[in-house]
């Protein structure tokens, strides 16, 4: 059964994943597709940011190192990053979110977090498309 991974704002369905207790082992290409993280010599990297993998616990993070059999444990990385997660077993859906300290830091920076959302026609808009303008953003709902 495919595993659905909701990683902060993104989501992906992965066919070849192994769930072992609280661990989620992914192929390296699926790791990147689902979460953006890449396994590199410097560690696990998301864009320019690399997190060294603790040597003593490397086998908790990586199996096989490279090639088609290599696997990475996204749940262990999330624990290292203090990202809480939630797993719905019947639908095999994992959900990972930024932790409280990451969110508090983001809010204290007063930098407006970017997002990308569709309008009624399906056209996508990012907040950064409007940089250089003052933005008065209002949330509403039909309910």
């Amino acid at each position, binding site marked *: 059964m495919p595993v659905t991974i909701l990683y902060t704002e993104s989501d992906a369905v992965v066919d070849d994943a192994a769930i072992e207790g609280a661990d989620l082992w992914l192929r390296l290409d699926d790791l990147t597709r689902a979460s953006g993280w890449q396994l590199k010599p410097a560690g696990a990297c998301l864009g320019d940011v690399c997190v060294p993998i603790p040597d003593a616990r490397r086998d908790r993070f990586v199996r096989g190192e490279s090639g088609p059999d290599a696997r990475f444990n996204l749940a262990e990385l999330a624990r290292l990053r203090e990202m*809480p997660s939630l797993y*719905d077993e019947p639908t095999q859906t994992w959900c990972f979110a930024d932790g409280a300290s990451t969110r508090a830091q983001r809010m*204290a920076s007063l930098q*407006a977090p970017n*997002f990308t959302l569709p309008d009624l026609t399906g056209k996508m808009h990012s*907040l950064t498309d409007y940089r250089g303008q*003052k*933005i*008065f953003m209002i949330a509403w709902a039909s309910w």
Partner: protein
Amino acid sequence: MWQSLSEELKHHGLTVITVALDTGGADAARPFIERAHATHPSLIDRRHAVADLYQFVNVPNAVWIDEQGVIVRPAHAPAATASMANMIGLGADDYLNAVRDWAAHGTDSRFVPTPERRRTSQHDIDSADVTAALNFRLGEYLVEHGEQEAGRSYLNEAVRLRPESWAYRRQAWAIYEPPEKNGALWYEATVQHPVLPDEPYYAPVDLDGDAAVVDPAQTARNQRQIFESTFGRAFAKKDDAP
């Protein structure tokens, strides 16, 4: 509602963006957007992602962002009408005039709080808030993908962990309760048996930093009275919805 302000202020380099927090997606939001003849970006946010990023716990909620992408007024209830202004402790046109002043003068406007005031006015996120967000995200995804019943316990857990989020609570009602009951449920939770008796439904807005400190419980009571006189006739029947 915001269309005329958008037209009025765009020559100042101000863009109005509205975001519909709605698991019902474009279908739910379309009639409202079309009726408003909105020409500004009118976005659809099924996952309430913007609410999560900007800490919106109710609608309407708004944020002001400057030309460099800095938040110059964090999450707050905006007032486009006299009744909304009254609820957040302002005169009828005070809020719109503050937006106009900011549009004209930018960060020099006296209605732009200092960075320190912006930071202290933000909600302090704790682990229960994060767990609530995680439950909402998972529940909403399941609902969006046809697993409505599987999503129910997660959405209910989000509501339980973040009781001040009317966005979570009312969204869950919109999904799981018949539409004709939503008004009565809302009235019961805000007026008849308030889930947060001492917390205002909309926090008072301090526009220029020198408003008198208002007791939250007093504001909550005032807002309940406004709801009672405005909606009591329609929703107060205890047995069922009108």
